[in-house]
């Protein structure tokens, strides 16, 4: 039973499922964590994503496809989870900060910025995370989120403007 997971392989790439988890766990977890700003919820989403990957392993045609698929499913699941939590009227963003991770030297700024990102409207939030965590260009983000490139660019612009206002950061001239 346990052995079957390690030999389950992506059909095209021959990479084992276990290896895929180890390779991509940081990406998947971080996408969810930066979106939800809750480690436990992010781990739950990340586990769900990999479980879903396991069910769809045979459909993966290449390593690039796997990465695209993981990003897309993680984004969708994170947004769904955020909506579910919003309907439950869970605790606000401030209290939802992660107490388990103590700030490092420049940690307060990072923590503040992460909280600000977590307070953005959903779509803007996901666009920002895909842009700055994953270094994706707007055209790639558009494909991932099934929206137009112009939509991505305008959401990016609005999000950055909002963040600048809240963070009190001056734009470089």
């Amino acid at each position: 039973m346990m052995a079957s997971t390690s030999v389950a392989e992506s059909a095209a790439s021959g990479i084992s499922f276990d290896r895929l988890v180890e390779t991509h766990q940081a990406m998947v977890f971080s996408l969810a964590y930066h979106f939800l700003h809750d480690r436990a919820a992010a781990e739950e989403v990340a586990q769900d994503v990999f479980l879903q990957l396991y069910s769809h392993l045979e459909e993966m045609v290449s390593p690039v496809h796997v990465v695209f698929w993981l990003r897309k499913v993680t984004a969708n699941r994170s947004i769904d989870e955020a909506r579910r939590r919003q309907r439950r009227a869970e605790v606000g963003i401030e209290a939802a900060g992660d107490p388990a991770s103590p700030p490092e030297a420049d940690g307060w700024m990072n923590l503040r910025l992460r909280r600000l990102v977590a307070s953005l409207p959903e779509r803007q939030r996901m666009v920002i995370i895909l842009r700055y965590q994953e270094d994706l260009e707007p055209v790639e983000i558009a494909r991932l989120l099934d929206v137009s490139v112009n939509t991505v660019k305008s959401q990016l612009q609005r999000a950055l403007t909002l963040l600048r206002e809240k963070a009190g950061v001056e734009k470089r001239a």
Partner: protein
Amino acid sequence: MKPIYWVAPVVLAVTLAAHGQQIQIPASWDQLAAKAEEVDNVMLDKNMLGLAAKFMKDDNDQDSVEVNRLLGKLNGIYVRHLEFKNPGEFTQADVEPVRAQLQGPEWTRIVDVKDKNTKENVVIYTRTVNGKSAGLVILAEEPTELTFVHLDGSIDPQDLDRLSGNFGIPKDVHAPKANPDKQKPTGEKP
């Protein structure tokens, strides 16, 4: 009688005993499982918990230490968890037979929350026998999820507190603080 005829009933009895749990899950949940996108089914009796505990000792991290401590108190862990693609796949008729088994004098409903907006219901029951804690049941209904968790054994609020922060278990989950107005079970049969 030929030996094989003795073996079969004994093995059947063992099998049924292994599957036996205080709370019977209705057969309709098997049909629901066929429709579900994700199904988790955990059935660990005392023997299996003992085996799990042996292997947990090797992990030597704080989580495992606390879980091991809990396992020593339990007689069984039984879980059924179904996740569906769309809402409306299960009805109260599926849940009611489980609730009916939790109406006896040994069971106390300590948390009972119904959210009409999100259509989420969570009920937590504790079992007390001769004044001692004997189990915990969580029954959660969400639009696309149905979850039953039964921790059979002398689990008490301190055990949950020790695990809080891990596995998503929040602090102070033992209900007298969490849900002071809903401790008194309503509508329960004597």
